[in-house]
C-alpha cells in the first residue's frame, strides 16, 4: 500500500509535472495564429490568379485570335454555356478514375502484402513490376482500344497500370522500415507472422502508403485523359480531342481546367483521409 501511494505522489509532483503538463492539454490557437495558418494557402491561390490576370490582359491587348489562345473569361463563359456536355464528360472521367484508382489501390495492397510475406514472390515479381513501368503509355493506350474496345475496361486497366506501382513501392518500403527489435519484441509476446503484420508492419507503413497514394493520384488523372484521348465515347479526353479538331480551343482549355480541379480535389481528399486514418502521425509531427 505504501509503495503505491509513494509512487503516486512521486509521479504526481515530479515526473508528470516535469513533462510540462501532460497529455491532455488542449491548444487553443490565438487569432494571430489562425491568420498565419490561413496565410499559408494564400500564395498558392495568388499565383494562379496572377497568371490568369496577365493572360487575360495580354490576349485582349494583343487581340489574339480566340482559336489560337482564348481569354480566361471566354473559356469560363463558353464552358458554362456547354455545361451539360461538360458535366457528361466529367462524370464519365470521374467514373473511370473512381473504378480504376480504387481497384489500383486494392491491387497494390494485395500485391504488396503477398510480396512482403513470400520472399520468392517478391524476388519473382519485382523485375517484372519495374519493367511494367517502362511501357510507354503512348504506345499501349491505342493497343488497349484494339484489344478491349471503347468502353470502360481499357481506361480502368490503363489507370491501374500507371498508378499501382508507386503505391506498391511505397508500401514495400514502409513494411521494410519496421524495426527489427519491434518484430523480436512481438515474437516474445507469442505473435504470429500475420499478427505482427497487422499490429506493426502495416500500421507502420501507413505514412508511406499515403505518400504513394498522393503521387499516384496525379498519375491517375493523366492516365484517364490519355486513355480517352485515343478513343472513347465520352470523357474529358475525347472531348478535348473533339474540341481541338473543331478549333474550339476555349473548350480544350475548359477541359484542362476541369482536369486540374479533379487532381487538386483528389489530392485534398487523400490528405483529409490520411489525417483521419493517422491522427497520431500528424499530432506527433506537429509536436516534433
Amino acid at each position, binding site marked *: 500500500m505504501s509503495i503505491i501511494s509513494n*509512487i503516486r505522489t512521486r509521479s*504526481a509532483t515530479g515526473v*508528470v509535472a516535469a513533462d510540462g503538463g501532460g497529455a491532455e492539454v488542449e491548444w487553443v490557437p490565438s487569432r494571430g495564429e489562425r491568420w498565419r495558418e490561413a496565410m499559408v494557402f494564400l500564395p498558392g491561390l495568388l499565383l494562379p490568379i496572377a497568371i490568369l490576370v496577365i493572360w487575360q490582359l495580354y490576349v485582349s491587348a494583343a487581340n489574339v485570335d480566340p482559336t489560337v489562345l482564348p481569354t480566361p473569361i471566354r473559356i469560363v463563359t463558353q464552358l458554362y454555356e456547354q455545361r451539360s456536355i461538360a458535366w457528361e464528360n466529367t462524370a464519365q472521367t470521374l467514373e473511370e478514375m473512381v473504378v480504376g484508382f480504387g481497384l489500383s489501390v486494392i491491387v497494390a495492397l494485395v500485391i504488396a502484402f503477398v510480396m512482403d510475406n513470400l520472399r520468392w514472390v517478391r524476388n519473382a515479381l519485382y523485375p517484372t513490376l519495374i519493367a511494367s513501368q517502362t511501357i510507354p503509355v503512348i504506345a499501349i493506350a491505342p493497343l488497349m482500344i484494339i484489344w478491349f474496345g471503347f468502353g470502360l475496361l481499357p481506361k480502368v486497366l490503363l489507370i491501374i497500370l500507371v498508378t499501382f506501382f508507386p503505391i506498391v513501392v511505397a508500401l514495400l518500403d514502409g513494411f521494410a522500415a519496421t524495426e527489427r527489435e519491434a518484430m523480436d519484441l512481438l515474437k516474445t509476446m*507469442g505473435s504470429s507472422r500475420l499478427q505482427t503484420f497487422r499490429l506493426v508492419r502495416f500500421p507502420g507503413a501507413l505514412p508511406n502508403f499515403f505518400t504513394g497514394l498522393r503521387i499516384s493520384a496525379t498519375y491517375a488523372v493523366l492516365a484517364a485523359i490519355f486513355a480517352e484521348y485515343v478513343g472513347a465515347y465520352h470523357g474529358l479526353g475525347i472531348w478535348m480531342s473533339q474540341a481541338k479538331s473543331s478549333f474550339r480551343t476555349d473548350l480544350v482549355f475548359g477541359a484542362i481546367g476541369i482536369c486540374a480541379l479533379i487532381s487538386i480535389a483528389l489530392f485534398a481528399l487523400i490528405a483529409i483521409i490520411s489525417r483521419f486514418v493517422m491522427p497520431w502521425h500528424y499530432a506527433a509531427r506537429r509536436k516534433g
Partner: protein
Amino acid sequence: MEAATAGRISTGVELHGVSKTFRNGRRAVQVLKDIQFTAEPGEFVSVIGPSGCGKSTLFKLVAGLERADTGTTEIGGKPVDPADNPVAYMPQKDLLLPWRSVIRNVTMPLEIGGVGKSEAMERARKLFPVFGLEGFEDAYPFTLSGGMRQRAALMRTVIQERPLMLLDEPFGALDSLTRTEMQEFLLDIWDRFGHTIVFITHDIRESIYLSDTIYVMTARPARVRMKVSVDLPRPRNIDVITTPRFTELEAELLHALREENRQQEATF
C-alpha cells in the same frame, strides 16, 4: 488496491556451456563462449560487460529468439521452448507503437495472447496507478516524457505475467535523475510482483544498487569473467550508494570491466 498480477510467480534460468557463433558475410564471429549462468527463482541478476560483447545475444537465447550452437538453456528446469513464450522481454528502446494509445500499447501482449479486449483493458487499468500513469491511458505515446514511456514499456512487460523478465538496458537512454527514479521504481515493482529479473546494463552503480547477483562478461567472445554476490541488505534505498561496502563492490567491478574494455579495444 488489488494487484492485477496476484501471487508471486517466478522461475529460474540456467545456461550451461552455451556457445553461439554468427556468420557475418564470410566471417564467423563467435559471440558467446561456454557460458555458465544461473538466476534463481525470484532473484534479481544483472549482466554487465563491455559494449558489443554479446549480452543481447544471451537474452535472445533465453527468449527463444535465437538458438545456441552448443550447451543447454533451461527455464524452470526445462529447455527453452519458444512456443511457450516463457519470458517477458523489455528492449532498450521502449518501442511503444505511436499509433496506439498508451493503454492499447500495454494491452497488446494480452491481445496477441487471445485475451478479450474488455478483460485486457480492465487488467491494464488496474496497473496504471501502480505505474504512476493514471490519467494517461488514452494519451498517445509521443506526448509522454522519457521516464513515463519507460514505465509504460515496463507495464507492458509486467502485464504479461511471465515468471521471468528480461530487461535489456531499459534505462540507458534516460537522464540521470529520471534514471534513479526508475531504478527505485523497478525495485518497488520487483518487490511487489516477485519476478525473476535478468537485467542488462552498462552502469556499474545501477547493477550494484538493483541486483542480488552480478555477472561480469569478458570481451568478445563473451565468457563469464566473474560472478559477484551483492550482500547489501534489502530493502535498499538510494543512500546505499554511499556505504563503504557499495564503494568496495564498485571498485572491484570497475577494475574488472576496465581490463575487459582494454581487451575489447585491442581486438578491434
